[in-house]
């Protein structure tokens, strides 16, 4: 019997636990422990779902849903789960480096290599990307007054492809090893000659799945913003978060293709003996570096732009002021998006091009600092004279302004090739990019959760625990990463599992302390969510507008109905909802209701995701029958779906009317709250704008609003 035909290259020794049995060591024990946690976590989930009888609701209400709001929430849940793994890996690396004088420590070099590779890959592709994608999914259609994205099914398919990639990386904890090539997987090290085995293949296919998912997301969102804005929502009336979503989507359309090309070429080198990036036979690894960073640099702007959008919304809302310099913020975003394609070479200043080429790219890189600086001033000036509330989200914002500027400065330093030659490949660089990504992107997403959670679930998050998490995260970040600047300047290289210079020790100790604080912050965040769910009755804000919001998403109930808007809103100004509240025209009943068509749930997307995951797993382990079968199944599902006819269902006008009128009546009857009471149980979600406190009482229904189509 030829087992290889069935199981490909999987052997019993491929399972992580075999390593522990064959050569027991602490490093192996940790690997087995991680594998066990993954298995137990999966088993625990299965048991929980079974005991609670949640399988059916999970399938019916979530996995098969194509509603952009549910898709968005699933993305964010995915991001948080993956964050838990990647942040623990980060803490492990910190602990190893603390313990690692002169070859000490508890991790083998190989294990350490897998840790920074999975940590980096997961954080970028399966934490940051799903986080921003989920947020854009949830918020953008609400902000432009749309009922869904342009292609809801495609949206669900993007989610499921991303999930397939994430599952593949989780599987690598248990079956086989992961790559040790870092998140950038440079050949020739990742070629078959130096990295035989399945590790790099896990990286290739997980990243490719995520990359295809993101391309489709970008396409979908760009079309949505161009084509689905409600009447009156001209481009320059769009909220800034929507603007940044648009720019990010365009970047996704252009930037993901080079990554897909690079991973495919790497795969062809490894699987079929091609010579794209090999040593000799005409291969050229510089081509990989160019392709990867042609994606990689725009990628960092794909991540930060939506976060900039969040910061713009947060600072305006919690300052109760119109954003300062709207137009300049839009142009700055556009400039950044365009420039982001002109700087990729700064990732390899040291890899052999001429000084002049380096100089040009160095200057281009520094120029990006200009539009970013414009933004920082706009945010600062928005706060001037505003009614500032130091909520958790706002604390994160202020922390962002302070630390992001420092990170930006070190970026300008690194943009100077002369300096880069000194500190490239050291912990200085690691400090720099974490300095941008953590206070900028990650905390931006955390702030977004604080800000939009009540919209998505109908109750606020516990403010005290939120602040507790902030006061761990913010100093934790400083402690964990500022020492790395020093270490980098002292010569400590990145991706290194051991060292011998005794001067390093105190700095590594500080960094470890910081990592511990970050873990504590995450624990508080989880606790915050749990406690808030328990106390959801007293935190409830179903009337939709707990923060005195400005854009359209705050004008509808929390959580929003499946159809979002009972009638499509008519917009006449920026900050449409805020203006309506001030004019006293908010919460009017429409003159008439119409039937609404919403897409039906479908098993298409989860099936595609499932087969894509199986396909990738088959490729990793050379299980060719699985590759063929699942490939055929993916396309069979697509074709079968194209024959489905009843893909939409109608929500009758009467249903829409009943729901909407009940909501409006509740709003009108509830006394509004001022900003002083924002964090009290009185805040049910009807806000009274500043200076209109006199109108806090019950609202008159007012004249019905004519509906245009």
């Amino acid at each position, binding site marked *: 019997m030829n087992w290889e035909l069935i199981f490909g290259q999987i052997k019993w020794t491929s399972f992580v636990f075999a390593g522990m049995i064959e050569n027991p060591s602490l490093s192996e024990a940790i690997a087995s422990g991680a594998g066990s946690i993954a298995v137990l976590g999966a088993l625990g989930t299965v048991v929980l779902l079974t005991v609670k009888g949640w399988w059916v609701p999970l399938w019916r209400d979530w996995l098969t849903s194509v509603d952009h709001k549910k898709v968005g929430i699933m993305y964010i849940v995915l991001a948080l789960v993956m964050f838990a793994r990647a942040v623990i890996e980060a803490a492990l690396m910190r602990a190893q480096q603390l313990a690692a004088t002169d070859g000490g420590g508890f991790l083998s070099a190989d294990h350490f290599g897998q840790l920074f590779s999975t940590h980096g890959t997961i954080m970028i592709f399966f934490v940051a990307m799903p986080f921003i994608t989920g947020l854009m999914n949830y918020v953008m259609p609400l902000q432009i007054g749309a009922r869904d994205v342009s292609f809801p099914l495609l949206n669900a398919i993007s989610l499921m492809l991303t999930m397939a990639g994430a599952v593949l990386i989780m599987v690598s904890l248990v079956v086989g090893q992961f790559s040790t090539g870092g998140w950038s997987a440079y050949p020739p090290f990742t070629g078959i000659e130096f990295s035989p085995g399945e590790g790099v293949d896990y990286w290739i296919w997980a990243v490719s799945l995520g990359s295809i998912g993101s391309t489709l997301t970008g396409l979908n969102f760009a079309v949505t913003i161009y084509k689905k804005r409600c009447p009156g929502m001209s481009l320059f009336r769009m909220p800034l978060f929507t603007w940044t979503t648009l720019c990010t989507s365009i970047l996704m*359309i*252009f930037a993901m293709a080079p990554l897909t090309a690079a991973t495919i070429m790497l795969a*062809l080198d490894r699987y*079929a003996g*091609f010579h*794209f990036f*090999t040593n000799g036979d005409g291969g050229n690894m510089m*081509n990989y570096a160019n392709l990867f960073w042609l994606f990689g640099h725009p990628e960092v702007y794909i991540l930060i732009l939506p976060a900039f959008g969040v910061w713009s919304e947060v600072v305006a809302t919690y300052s109760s002021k119109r954003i300062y310099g709207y137009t300049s913020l839009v142009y700055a975003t556009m400039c950044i998006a365009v420039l982001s394609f002109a700087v990729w070479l700064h990732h390899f200043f040291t890899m052999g091009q001429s000084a002049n080429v380096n100089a040009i790219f160095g200057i281009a890189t520094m120029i990006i600092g200009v539009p970013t600086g414009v933004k920082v001033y706009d945010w600062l000036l928005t706060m001037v004279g505003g009614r500032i509330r130091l909520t958790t989200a706002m604390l994160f914002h202020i922390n962002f302004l302070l630390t992001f500027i420092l990170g930006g400065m070190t970026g300008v330093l690194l943009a100077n090739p002369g300096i880069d030659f000194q500190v490239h490949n050291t912990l200085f660089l690691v400090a720099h990019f974490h300095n941008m990504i953590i206070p900028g992107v990650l905390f931006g997403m955390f702030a977004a959760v604080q800000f939009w959670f009540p919209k998505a679930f109908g109750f606020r998050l516990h403010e005290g625990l939120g602040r507790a998490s902030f006061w761990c995260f913010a100093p934790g970040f400083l402690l964990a990463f500022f020492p790395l600047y020093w270490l980098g300047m002292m010569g400590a290289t990145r991706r290194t599992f051991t060292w011998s210079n005794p001067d390093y020790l105190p700095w590594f100790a500080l960094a470890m302390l910081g990592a511990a604080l970050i873990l504590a912050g995450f624990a508080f965040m989880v606790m915050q969510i749990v406690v808030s769910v328990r106390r959801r009755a007293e935190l409830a804000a179903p009337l939709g507008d707990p923060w005195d919001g400005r854009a359209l998403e705050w004008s509808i109930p929390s959580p929003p109905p499946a159809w979002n808007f009972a009638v499509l809103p008519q917009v006449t100004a920026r900050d449409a909802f805020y203006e309506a509240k001030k004019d006293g025209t908010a919460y009017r009943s429409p003159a008439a209701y119409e039937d609404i068509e919403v897409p039906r749930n479908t098993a298409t997307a989860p099936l595609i995701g499932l087969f894509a995951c199986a396909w990738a797993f088959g490729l990793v382990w050379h299980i060719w029958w699985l590759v063929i079968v699942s490939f055929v199944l993916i396309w069979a599902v697509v074709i079968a779906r194209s024959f489905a006819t009843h893909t939409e269902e109608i929500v009758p006008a009467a249903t829409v009317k009943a729901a909407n009128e009940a909501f409006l009546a509740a709003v009108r009857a509830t006394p509004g709250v001022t900003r002083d009471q924002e964090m009290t149980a009185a805040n049910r979600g009807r806000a009274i704008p500043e200076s209109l406190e006199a109108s806090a009482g019950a609202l008159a229904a007012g004249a019905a609003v004519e509906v245009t189509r």
Partner: protein
Amino acid sequence: MSLSERLHPGINLAGTDPESHEAAEEVLFGFWIFLMSDLVLFAVLFATYAAMSVQGIAEGPRPAEVFDLTAAFLETLLLLFSSFAFGFAMLEMKYRENRRGVLGWLLVTGLLGAGFVGMELHDYYVMVTAHGATPQTSGFLSAYYLLTGTHALHVSSGLVWMAVMAVQVVVFGLSPAVKLRLMRLALFWHMLDVVWIGIFTFVYLYGVVS
């Protein structure tokens, strides 16, 4: 004049209601964007080929030694004529709403397209057997096979799509949904022409000249 008429006077959807026209706009625009992202992929492959066909020769043959211009020219004709035939299919759809006409022209398109893929496979066969020019030989050949192979894969998936659409024309008739899909397939097919013109000029003509 409705909004959509002002924006797309030439959309091939004649004979349907204004609502279908409006819905078409979003779908077709989305497909254009998809084509753009696909073109970015091809652009990257072209760039790779540009570098590899000069620096990646190693011990292997040079472009001029392995390319057969006659075959490439015939392939070009096949592909362009298939696009021409697809144009007729779309005219049948737009002006006559004639199922048979559409199916007939789709068949012609498909046959020409299949001829193209067949000839290309034959090219590969000749290159491998007569010149020993496998993708494993050199970086240049790796890039050549990837670029032309990706194009051929696109054409092949277009053929599968065409077959599915033929079935849909029979099952559903020329309903708005089917029409929209045919229109997208047409765009896809024409885009592959454009890419092939690039390949023919840049890979074959330029390769043989230099």
